């Protein structure tokens, strides 16, 4: 036990004396969560739009007022003819143009059918999509009010109710993803680098010739990272609760246990990588390409798995991060207990056992 403590003390010296590790360990999580939370967002605010109003009657005026009053849009300019539309877009400031047809009010009342063209700048498809949705919502809202007063016609109005994230805050989606990335980065990449470093420097050989058992060496190497990963997870959760008002509906204990399970899976992957790479550079490349990319692209963190081509959907199943993100979202946003995520937990557990087994086997082979 005393040997073990000495070993861990040494590991902490390594970590705290290396500015790069310190930055990855403590700078990255905070920077990432703030970046994703503040800068990267699917919400729109004060988007500049232009209006081309061919009727200029009561109805169009009211709609325009409604749009101008919303915090999502600000009316940048009024244009007079179709030809101006393209010119406005080319200047780049205006992201959407609303084109009201002639005799808008009349058509609306008499034929119950008036047309607005919503033209959006789709160089940024996400924003374009959001803008058109928001405009539609405002129009629906206007119609509802009109129908109320005139008590006229039956219309089907779909009422959308977004559960678990009613305001569609993107931070709710990013926190589980960022947490997954950070834990993967710290646990897998940092351990694989720290183990290969000992190999590269030749100190691993010295450790293996010492009375320390190989398993003690490995546990000694990964233990500090388990500890630091847990701290990181706590920092991320605390930041998201207090800065972004992210709710944690479910049990914190369950959240902690699931995180530990994922950390262990990632550590096993890190050990596995260290057994197949001879240098720190290789370990880093394998971690980045083999772990980080799939985590970002295929875990459902940014791109929804359901809309991927089938082969990618199948591949996404072998990525531990996918299951961890599902678990995180369920616990944090839906507030469910283990009875709803036992399947994902079991899959993650299976992966952890598999990777630990594989890395122990690989590690033994390497010793030969």
């Amino acid at each position, binding site marked *: 036990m005393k040997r073990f403590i000495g070993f861990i003390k040494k590991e902490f010296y390594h970590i705290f004396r290396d500015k790069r590790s310190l930055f990855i360990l403590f700078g990255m999580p905070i920077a990432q969560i703030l970046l994703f939370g503040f800068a990267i967002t699917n919400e729109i605010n004060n988007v500049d739009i232009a209006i081309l109003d061919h009727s200029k009657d009561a109805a169009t005026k009211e709609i325009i007022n409604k749009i101008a009053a919303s915090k999502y849009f600000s009316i940048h300019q009024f244009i007079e003819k179709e030809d101006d539309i393209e010119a406005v877009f080319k200047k780049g400031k205006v992201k959407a143009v609303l084109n009201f047809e002639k005799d808008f009010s009349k058509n609306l009342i008499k034929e119950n059918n008036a047309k607005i063209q919503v033209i959006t700048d789709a160089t940024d498809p996400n924003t374009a999509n959001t803008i058109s949705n928001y405009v539609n919502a405002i129009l629906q809202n206007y119609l509802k009010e009109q129908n109320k007063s005139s008590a006229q016609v039956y219309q089907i109005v779909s009422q959308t109710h977004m559960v678990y994230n009613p305001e569609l805050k993107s931070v709710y989606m990013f926190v589980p993803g960022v947490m997954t990335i950070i834990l993967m980065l710290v646990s897998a990449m940092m351990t694989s680098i720290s183990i290969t470093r000992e190999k590269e420097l030749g100190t691993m050989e010295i450790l293996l010739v*010492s009375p320390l058992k190989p398993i003690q060496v490995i546990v000694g190497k990964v233990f500090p990272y388990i500890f630091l990963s847990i701290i990181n997870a706590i920092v991320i959760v605390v930041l998201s609760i207090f800065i972004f008002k992210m709710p944690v509906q479910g049990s914190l204990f369950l959240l902690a246990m699931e995180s530990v399970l994922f950390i262990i899976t990632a550590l096993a992957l890190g050990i596995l990588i260290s057994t197949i790479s001879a240098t720190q550079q290789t370990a880093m490349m394998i971690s980045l390409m083999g772990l980080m990319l799939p985590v970002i692209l295929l875990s459902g963190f940014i791109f929804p798995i359901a809309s991927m081509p089938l082969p990618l959907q199948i591949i996404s199943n072998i990525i531990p991060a996918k299951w961890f993100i599902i678990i995180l979202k369920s616990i944090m946003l839906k507030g469910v207990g283990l009875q709803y995520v036992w399947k994902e937990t079991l899959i993650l557990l299976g992966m952890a056992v598999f990777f630990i087994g594989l890395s122990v086997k690989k590690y033994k082979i390497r*010793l030969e």
Partner: protein
Amino acid sequence: MENNNVIKVAGLTKMFGDFTAVNAITFDVKKGEIFGFLGANGAGKTTAMKMLIGISTPTSGKATVAGFDVNTQPEQIKKTIGYMSQKFALYDDLTVRENITFFGGIYGLSREKIKSKAAILIDELGLENVANKLVGSLPLGWKQKLSFSVSLIHDPKIVFLDEPTGGVDPITRRQFWELIYKASHQGTTVFVTTHYMDEAEYCDRVSIMVNGKIEALDTPKKLKERFKVDNMNDVFLKLARG
């Protein structure tokens, strides 16, 4: 004289697939002697050494190190030997004192013992002024001497040195050999591989490995007489070229 042999090797063989890296070598090393283990690159000396220090299992054959069987008691062997590899192997980002404490710790020395050992070691190597400096900032020669002293921290019966003087200047090499002599005088058996033939002359006995076999084993003086040459370099060349 059975008890005088701290390393006994009989028919030790290591195969990697079809390739025989070490081919049935047999030799003994006496207590307290400086045993030079020579051979060209790829002759199998590192593989042989790895079996003796308990990190590689022999394919066949027997060997005991300090009375322990390499096949069945590698853990006991590890406790009784010291090892220094050809790569300089202390931690650059730890201070001299922290390195000593760490390696003392993994060999299970008590805190007081580590303290007194560290004091002696730092004094002997004249490192008082840099004891709390990072090892990375020391010149290579100092590091190597420190590395050797650290490999002796738990008073091992035998110390294995794998090309310990690679890349250092002749003066430092000379000083390094003085440390080896000192350890040998204190009763530690020294098992050393080297490329430098002048160093082979410093050994009590040397063995020369060629293609996995030990082709010659004797005192440097007798080897030179046998091959009718006046230095170890020529002995080596005659053997290696067949």
